[in-house]
């Protein structure tokens, strides 16, 4: 099965939701079962959820900007379709992974800072 490593993302062209077809089935977004809350005020949990969503969206924007910059090295302006078709080569993936790690570290600083004080 392993012969296909190169093909890993060879299908990015097809990745774009090119088909005009849509499904009649609705997207399921809620899991059955009670949702746990952890803080005395559940609104704090909701704020954490909203904050994490924003953390994620900032990273998405950053990666999109990074794609634009990579494409700008070979082309002048990139269209949405060109961004979609972009295949990040391994070194780019590695750089992005490093960026994400640093980024998450900055977001989590207040928590790791507290740990350092506890360790001291």
């Amino acid at each position, binding site marked *: *099965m392993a012969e*296909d490593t190169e*093909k*890993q*993302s*060879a299908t990015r062209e*097809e*990745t*774009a*939701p090119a*088909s005009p*077809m*849509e*499904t*009649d*089935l609705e*997207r*399921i*977004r*809620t*899991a*059955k*079962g009670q949702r*746990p*809350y*952890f*803080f005395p005020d559940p609104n*704090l*949990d909701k704020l*954490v*959820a909203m904050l*994490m*969503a924003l*953390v*994620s969206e900032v*990273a*998405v924007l950053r*990666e*999109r900007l990074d*794609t634009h910059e990579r494409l700008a090295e070979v082309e002048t302006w990139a269209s949405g379709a060109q*961004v*979609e078709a*972009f295949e990040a080569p391994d070194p780019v*993936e*590695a750089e*992005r*992974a*490093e960026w*994400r*790690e640093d980024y*998450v*570290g900055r*977001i*989590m600083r207040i*928590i*790791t800072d*507290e*740990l350092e004080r*506890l*360790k001291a």
Partner: protein
Amino acid sequence: MALNIKEPYPHRMMPRATHDEHARENIIAAVKHFMSDNIYPNDELVYEKQAKQRFVKEHGREPKDCGEVHHLMMDEPYTQMWSSMARTLQEMLWDNQGEIVQHEMPRMQAEAKALTRKAKGSVTLDPDFEMPRYVSAVDIHAMPGGYPTSRSEDDLFTPAVYDRGAYYYTRGMVGRWGEGGAQALINAVKEFYPDLQPKRILDVGCAIGWSTVPLVDAWPEAEVHGIDVGEAFMRYAHARAEGLGKVVHFHQMNGEDLKFPDGHFDLVMSGGMYHETSKKAAPRIIKEIYRVLKPGGVSMNYDIPYGGEYNLHEQFMLNWDCYFNAEPFWRQWTAWDRADFMSWGGFDKDGVIDAWADRDHEGNFKFFPKPFDELHTSARGGIGRVQFFGAKK
């Protein structure tokens, strides 16, 4: 090293993410990875330096069981914060996959049709199937729709979400084809039972067939079957196996009531199934497995680890998912000694083999000899650590 996960192998049924959806997969995995490396392992520090002292002051003694540790830690701001984040990350992971699958559904449905038209394997659905309550009452691991949902004859939503989503849930540890667990299991079978030449193999609780498909290459002469409860899961598993060019026979069936004759299989395996079945169902399943095995046949399994010899705080970490990540049977499973469990099915307790392994982010397993030499509390939810157990009939 920063976590750099390859995309899952793009077999024909695999949902394909857009640029931004893929970026979202990566950041969710990166935050989860940071938590595993930096946050979960330090919960014990907070316990030792803060929480336990608070408890001793109040009660004049240390906590005596993991229930007390659980209540104590859930009052700690540190634990509350990571718990809140962990739960929300789980929801974000599935929801992002739902977005991907929603726009991929028409393509996947067309692929499934094309792939199954000339199928070499098969899928058998049971129109009278009764869904066990332990999978229908709660969506296991908080995956919207869970295992049972099938809303039409070509609904592929939940299994497709599972295929790509569970890969990212494990941060690639299952391997790009989801084959890692099976590869390690195959190695374990060949090592412990070198004479076994299975003609018929059954994967119980096979989900989308991650662990079923690699059996075909491991024993090319064998007839390979997989069963699970979800209609959509079986439909997807069938199309996926066909897309990978592997002949597998999938059946919608309950492991508590296998519709196979006595002594039908040489090897019956399971991967990550028992912790998602109930206290009543699991012993029934192992009895059924024993029944359908030939004399001399082998049952080999892997699942989250037995937690009986972990310390109280480690037990709390191991069982967090039971309370907060919709894994209602998880704690029960970590409490059962595997040799005892196998003996309830009819296997000789003294013949039960027990092997432990950790996996890396490419799905490779490293077996190690003494499970409790290397505790692994950072892997909340037992993500990295796997226990293999098996026996011969």
